[in-house]
């Protein structure tokens, strides 16, 4: 379903913001200063040009402040570029913040119609899609309750359900993929796959390199408002990861902190025979290999690994000290393995975090949260629900 015409074409797009020294939003201040207040221009985007192919899933990445969200807002027409042009074909819908525009006092039903209208659907189209939206959100029972009584999860799910059923030609998504529980996420991914089959274009902004890698066909990498690299997802993300890694000393974005004498460079999933694996299976063996790089010699560090659900429930934590491993002196690159004999996690997606601390586990050299996504597929056990597998079997006739 490739279409030679690009879905979105950016031509020399530049956008700068005014950073007011003192924001004069009072009339008095404006009158006293007689007109314009002083401000600095901050170039959020400078001369960005590229095309997004119709039917592709396109990723925008870059560090905080690199201009990726500004670019997304320019495509969504929320911002008007100072110079250059943004051309797009078909209906565009943006998921920048889910449920924005919900009126807390109104029922879920009223809000679905309101939100759909804001996103550009006509009343008739909404009536046709309403059942599907409610079904997708999974909150049928509460649809006539005011949304202020919703939990934040329900709120976001309903917002997501509306946005994704707008079925625009171009869907813009900003960091909203980590919504809801696993079954909801699966529904979302299935819906995105459907988008792809239908030849719709999806543009994603995300920090999560792993999901970008699996999800996107092409990726643009923005650096200080300029296009730094553009191409097939895997190769651009690799280059980005390398650079980001080299500069991670400064990164303090809550995902990662430490004093950086030694750093976790990657966590890798291997089969028991040490061949790389894409996913693990319940009940089978696996090896988690932590690659590190020590810039300065570090004595007696302790490695830690943890597994948590996407909602952040910690399922397992273990430190190398627990097994009495003493690492003595670390210098240069290296790796350490955690060998799992039977992976007793049920099918699903989990976050793996890695840490390197001093021997007392008080000082963090590197605490890298969610450095890897662990995907677990069905193994030899037939559990129904839950997070862990007990490796159990049913037996009849015991009484």
């Amino acid at each position, binding site marked *: 379903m490739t279409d030679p015409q690009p879905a979105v074409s950016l031509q020399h797009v530049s956008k700068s*913001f005014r950073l007011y020294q003192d924001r004069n*939003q*009072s*009339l*008095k201040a*404006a009158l006293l200063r007689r007109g314009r207040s002083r401000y600095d221009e901050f170039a959020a985007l400078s001369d960005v040009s590229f095309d997004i192919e119709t039917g592709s899933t396109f990723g925008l990445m870059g560090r905080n402040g690199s201009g990726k969200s500004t670019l997304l*807002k320019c495509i*969504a*027409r*929320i*911002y*008007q570029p100072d110079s250059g042009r943004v051309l797009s074909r078909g209906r*565009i819908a*943006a998921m*920048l*913040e889910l449920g*924005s*525009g919900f*009126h807390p*006092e*109104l029922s879920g039903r*009223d809000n679905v*119609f*309101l939100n759909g*209208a*804001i*996103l*550009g*659907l*006509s*009343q008739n189209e909404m009536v046709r899609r309403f059942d599907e939206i409610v079904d997708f959100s999974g909150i049928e029972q509460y649809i006539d309750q*005011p949304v202020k009584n919703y939990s934040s999860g329900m709120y976001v799910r309903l917002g997501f359900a509306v946005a994704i059923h707008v079925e625009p030609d171009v869907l813009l998504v900003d960091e909203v993929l980590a919504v809801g529980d696993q079954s909801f996420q699966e529904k979302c991914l299935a819906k995105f796959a459907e988008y792809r089959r239908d030849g719709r274009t999806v543009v994603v902004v995300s920090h999560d390199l792993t999901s970008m890698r699996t999800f996107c066909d092409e990726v643009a990498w923005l650096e200080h408002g300029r296009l730094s690299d553009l191409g097939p997802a895997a190769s651009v993300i690799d280059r980005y990861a390398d650079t980001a890694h080299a500069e991670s000393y400064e990164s303090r974005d809550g995902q990662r902190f430490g004093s950086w004498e030694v750093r976790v460079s990657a966590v890798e999933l291997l089969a028991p025979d040490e061949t790389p694996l894409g996913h693990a299976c319940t009940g089978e063996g696996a090896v988690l290999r932590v690659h590190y790089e020590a810039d300065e010699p570090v004595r007696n560090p302790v490695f830690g690994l943890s597994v948590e659900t996407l909602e952040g429930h910690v399922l397992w934590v273990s430190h190398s000290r627990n097994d009495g491993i003493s690492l003595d002196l670390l210098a240069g690159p290296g790796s350490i393995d955690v060998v799992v004999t039977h992976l007793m996690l049920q099918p699903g997606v989990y976050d793996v975090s890695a840490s390197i601390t001093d021997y007392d586990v008080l000082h963090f050299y590197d605490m890298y949260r969610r450095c890897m996504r662990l995907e677990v597929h069905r193994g030899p056990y037939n559990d129904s629900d839950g997070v862990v597998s007990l490796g159990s079997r049913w037996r009849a006739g015991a009484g």
Partner: protein
Amino acid sequence: MSVFDQFTEHRDLLVNLSLREIRGQYRRTALGRLWSLLNPIATLLIYSLVFGVFLGVDPGPGEPSGLNVFALWLMCALVPWNFFNAAVQRGAGSLVENANLVKKVYFPRELLVTAVVASGATTFAIEMVVLVVALLLFGGTPLLWVPAAVVVMLLLVAFALGLAWLLSVSTVYFRDTSHLLQLVMMFWFYATPIVYPLSLVATFSAEHTPQWLPVSLLQLYELNPMTRFVEVLRVLLYDNTWPPADDVAYCAGVAAVAFFGGYAVLARFRRRLAEEL
């Protein structure tokens, strides 16, 4: 994008946003929609008592209707004023109030303002129906004049809408606008013949207009568009006769200027709204 796209291409969204205003306004109040009637009734009682009874304002009987009920005479001007006041003040604040929406979703921003005015216009229409029924009960014959009154009401809505568009942008840049507007509206209320008859101003003007002034005080007073609007509606509904043509023309003129001018300002600043909020 033309100013009328809002009412054609984006009609569904306008309806939905207006419904949000109407439904959301009195949620979680015991009396609900009743409040939208109780408020005007309370002001009507207060003004009737203070101005009609205590101060003895006497507008005289309607000519030719013969009606002589102060409360009805008051309502013919008070109801349009209440609409105008609420529409302009709430409309002016609507962009700032919905900042989150403006910053996160693209849609024609002017619809937020238009929806507030539209929801106010709905209440306005209902109140006017109640007024017409009351006029009938007291022996007036307003029905013949209703079509003309509807046209003038539409002009008033256009006038309020234009001002609301203009002021909503102004509020984004200067948050003082909303406070200033409260003062202006209070002043404007007394500068309009709502609680007193226009004849009072005419008498005063005849006696006190200074010699050196090329125009009379009354002419200055009548520059106020709201004077014309309430007078025209009063003449139509209370007096039951045709209003002076120049008054109607003046109403149409200011409505058109405000409507297209206000929209032009909004259209000019529309693109920067998301980042200025």
